[in-house]
């Protein structure tokens, strides 16, 4: 554990309670609180464009965390995550439109509905592994996508469906500035829940299943139960993320939840770090901001020889896709543990400077 060397000298834990906190030191906890406080005042000075990006990072980050619990922590694979994200979006819209359930309640309910669907598609996971499981989840992707297109009563068919804005006690969170807080609260809560899960019984069981399923079984862990459950939890996070997306855009179209989107989720967690909770958020931020960086790069190169040679303005669309692909490959080769691991190393370097160990 790289963390050990980062605990300052003389910081001794005298109770087990102090030794099982989320943050290893008081300073790290204070920095996290400070970060949230800074985020709280963000809408005051960020323009709509940046707020939109932050909100995207928020709801995608929740869904990515779900996928990380499945892939990074439990060692399963899913290439149908976008379909669950979509299912959450439609469920929440459907619940509030058809039954008049308040949006604030419809979002968690949509999460529960998605969990049920996720567990059904997760059942093969109890028997399948690796590539075979990947194909089974691919089936989930296509079945759900087809369902979205055909189930007019649920999704509004090809026309899509509108979703009510989020409101609480008559106060509508219908602008970016307001919705930012909804996403922020959901994100913080969901990330804390995941952190708690991973430091208690069932979270450990999930990691045990990943690391050595034979000895996990000998330790009394029911493999079928935990593999299916992992799909359920992952779908729950996807459902919540999707529901937030629906009530943010206030419109859900059936076209958005493609396999490409699923693979982008996989890209987020690989770049962020498999098996790292904060890594999920870092990876999501990276994937959302990468196109912006590409755009900025293009703008700064405008008029130069590179611009005229590559015709950047026209080519930006596919250059962006290529850049994402290239970045994933570079991460797999040079930093397979993702941004989260790189971040730890940077912290260690900072702390230990000028020594290397």
């Amino acid at each position, binding site marked *: 554990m790289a963390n050990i060397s980062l605990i300052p000298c003389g910081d001794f834990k005298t109770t087990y309670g102090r030794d099982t906190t989320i943050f290893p030191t008081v300073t790290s906890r204070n920095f996290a609180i400070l970060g949230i406080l800074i985020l709280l005042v963000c809408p005051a000075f960020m323009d709509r464009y940046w707020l939109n990006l932050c909100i995207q990072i928020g709801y995608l980050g929740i869904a990515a965390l779900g996928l990380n619990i499945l892939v990074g922590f439990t060692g399963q694979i899913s290439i149908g995550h976008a379909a669950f994200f979509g299912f959450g979006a439609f469920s929440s819209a459907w619940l509030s439109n058809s039954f008049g359930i308040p949006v604030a309640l419809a979002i968690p309910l949509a999460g529960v509905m998605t969990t049920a669907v996720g567990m059904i598609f997760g059942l093969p996971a109890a028997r399948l592994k690796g590539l075979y499981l990947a194909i089974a989840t691919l089936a989930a992707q296509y079945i759900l996508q087809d369902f979205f297109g055909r189930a007019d009563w649920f999704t509004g068919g090809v026309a899509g469906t509108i979703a009510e804005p989020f409101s609480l006690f008559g106060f509508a969170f219908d602008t970016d500035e307001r919705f930012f807080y909804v996403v922020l609260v959901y994100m913080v809560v969901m990330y804390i829940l995941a952190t708690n899960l991973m430091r208690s019984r069932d979270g450990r069981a999930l990691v045990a299943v990943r690391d050595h399923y034979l000895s996990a079984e*000998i*330790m009394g862990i*029911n493999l079928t139960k935990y593999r299916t459950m992992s799909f359920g939890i992952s779908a729950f996070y996807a459902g919540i993320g999707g529901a937030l997306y629906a009530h943010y855009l206030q419109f859900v179209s059936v076209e958005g939840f493609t396999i490409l989107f699923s693979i982008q989720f996989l890209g987020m967690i690989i770049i962020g770090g498999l098996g790292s909770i904060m890594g999920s958020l870092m990876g999501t931020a990276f994937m959302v901001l990468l196109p912006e960086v590409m755009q900025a790069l293009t703008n700064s190169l405008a008029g130069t020889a590179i611009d005229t040679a590559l015709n950047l303005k026209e080519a930006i669309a596919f250059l962006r896709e290529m850049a994402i692909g290239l970045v994933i490959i570079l991460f797999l080769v040079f930093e397979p543990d993702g941004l989260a691991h790189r971040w730890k190393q940077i912290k260690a370097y900072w702390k230990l400077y000028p020594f290397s160990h």
Partner: protein
Amino acid sequence: MSAADTPMFEARGVSLRFGGVQALTDVSFHIKKGELFSIIGPNGAGKTSMVNCISGRYRPTDGKVYFKGQDVTGMTPNHRAALGIGRTFQNLALFGHMTVLDNIMVGRHHLLKNNFLTGALYWFTGARQEELAHRREVEEIIDFLEIQHVRKATAGTLSYGLRKRVELARAIALKPDLILLDEPMAGMNLEEKEDMARYIVDLNEEWGMTVVMIEHDMGVVMDISHRVMVLEFGKKIAEGSPEEVLADPRVKRAYLGEDDEEEAAPPQKQEVA
């Protein structure tokens, strides 16, 4: 038969076949409560297969296994763990990316009550108190096996001897009544072996666990075992106290080597076989 007489474990006519390979043939034995029972035999004799039949990883093709008088033949390994059977593996099977502490805490799985919901709500559902209470007991095991200095290290980074000890700690954390140790001393140096033998005897005598051990080091086996069973080609050829087993001519022939004048016999025997 009264409850006190019920053996901790009993195998009745256990046979195990993998396709054309007969791993075990009609093996019957029982292990008394509080016993330190060793299974020995040459390589490929079926020792690990037998332990796998006890822990539930393999299901016998024929025959039945009983744990505390209860027929457990059809039970899954996780169910047997909850009943009180713990084990270690011949080839290390730790959770490589988890810390030593988490590895041992996984052993408490069936003793912990919280599920994923109450676990996620950590502070409000008693999950925290439960974690801390079990952490205390886990620390006792850590203390017993003298692995305090590595409790926060990632298990996959430890040396071989330490990993063996962590695996033993994880098996103890299950609080099993019957603990199966598959070659606990393989690949260790003399000092580590002496430590391990001490731990095993303590487990048996102070912690009151019934121990089943597979081991190749005859010195250790004969020193600490109460009873020994010898397997050869999947068949039981002897069972009894270490002295009895050592004196058995079949054991001598099969396992411990033979006197010079008898050495001419084996080729003949193999032709017959």
